[in-house]
């Protein structure tokens, strides 16, 4: 365990080494948040509803999704694909280290930094804009929300391994990642709550794993789901984690058989 803590710690140090790049990344996140925030705030005048969302509810959702996405979507595991393509994976295969554990620890380090910055940015935004933000008081909902975030982190990490595995058979790992990032923005509910979509589309989205990355944890936090819906959502998340684990296991084993350590 100690070595993984060290990996996570090294990740935070690495971020501070390239602090300007990290600052640029955060600036981009904040710019996107503010654009979405102001767009919704001007679209829903106070006292009116938009697909059942009042202005304050929608803005709380937008801020909540910004907060949750910094937990769930911040990642460094895209580097796995490069490891495979450049043959650097060989270095890890001979070490007494779990390769996925190594990248998960890196992700944790990255998430930690993102969370710290998100809290700082969030405080500044709240002080300047004084947005309506709903503070959940119910400890059980906070617990379920944290559990949903944890499941979201696992789902996203497993997806990242699957995407990186493309590197076993193709040099093109960047483009699928880009497509995935585009789809995630939409399907995970990063820009708007998914339940404003037409019901048949929303039902399909609920069956997919993406809505459990952002939409579901935020809705749980906001207390907009009943206990049955929460348990159902958590069950679907766990089911997807098992499905993805099976897929990762299958694809990774097959990939390692074809792995030729190019460049090494």
């Amino acid at each position, binding site marked *: 365990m100690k070595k993984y803590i060290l990996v996570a710690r090294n990740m935070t140090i690495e971020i501070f080494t390239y602090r300007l790049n990290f600052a640029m990344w955060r600036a981009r996140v904040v710019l996107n948040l*503010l*654009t979405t925030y102001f767009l919704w705030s001007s679209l829903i005048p106070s006292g009116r509803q938009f697909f059942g969302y009042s202005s304050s509810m929608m803005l709380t959702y937008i801020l909540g999704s910004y907060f949750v996405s910094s937990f769930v979507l911040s990642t460094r595991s895209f580097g796995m694909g490069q490891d495979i393509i450049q043959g650097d994976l060989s270095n890890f295969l001979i070490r007494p280290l779990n390769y996925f554990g190594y990248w998960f620890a890196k992700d944790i380090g990255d998430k930690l930094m993102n969370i710290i910055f998100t809290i700082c940015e969030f405080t500044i935004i709240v002080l300047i804009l004084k947005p309506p933000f709903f503070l959940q008081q119910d400890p059980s909902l906070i617990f379920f929300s944290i559990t949903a975030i944890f499941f979201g982190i696992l789902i996203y990490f497993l997806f990242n391994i699957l995407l990186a595995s493309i590197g076993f058979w193709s040099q093109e790992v960047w483009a*699928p990642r880009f*497509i995935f990032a585009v789809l995630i923005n939409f399907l995970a509910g990063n820009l708007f709550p998914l339940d404003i979509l037409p019901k048949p589309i929303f039902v399909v989205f609920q069956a997919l794993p993406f809505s459990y990355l952002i939409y579901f944890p935020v809705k749980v936090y906001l207390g907009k789901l009943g206990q049955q819906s929460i348990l159902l959502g958590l069950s679907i998340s766990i089911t997807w984690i098992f499905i993805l684990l099976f897929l990762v296991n299958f694809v990774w084993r097959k990939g390692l058989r074809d792995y030729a350590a190019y460049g090494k």
Partner: protein
Amino acid sequence: MKHYFQIYLLLIKLNYRRSIANRADLFTGLFGSLSWGVFSIVSIYILSARSSSVFGWSRAELFILIGVFNIMVGSTFRMLFSRNFENFSKLMRYGELDGVLLKPLDTQFAVSTQHISLYVIIRAVIACIYTYIVIVQSNAVVSFLSFLSFFILAIIGLILLYACWFLVMTLTVWLPDIYNLDEILYSTDALTRYPPQILNAMKILVFYLFFPFTLVVSTPTKALLHKLSVLDVVILVGFACGLLFISRKFWKFALRYYTSASG
């Protein structure tokens, strides 16, 4: 001028061959680009679903605006310039600009035109068809004159966007370790798909810095919709010429500080 035109034709041929050689890259790039286009349209449909007008623009006008955004920014700008700007930090960090400086070519031309993402043409065609359909559905009358003014203003709008990007990316001469400066600009580009009035909704003064971005697509669209005023044209042309001039001067100035890879 003729010399540059011939070089550009040659670059198109080279990029075409590169696209054919990397077919997987071509298909994934195309799919990513189209997904982004669809996503931008769907979000406008959702945003305007319960309002007859947003920022003084009717729903139909917003659909035309997003169509023009996809033609101009999503397709043309991405095809001609985006990859080149993404390459800037690499040029500076690894000293690859040395090779460009040695060529008997204008450096700004050389660094801005090397990569052409030809596959984006397909998105441009789809965006044109979409825009045509929404124009017909909204019963907007597009005369030859309004189309001509749209076309000219679209070129000026692209020049303005190019100048903004070039101005910012020139900073990589001093900051070669920043490899994600372009990501900020991609986010700022998103503002071009909304009317300029969106800035009034953003209650933070610093957002007015992005005002030129909001002119890029909205002004040519106004020409299509017969909503164009002389002031709109003057502002767009003024910003485009001014920022292009400044970006060129800034580039020339920055080159004096270029220290190659080991700097």
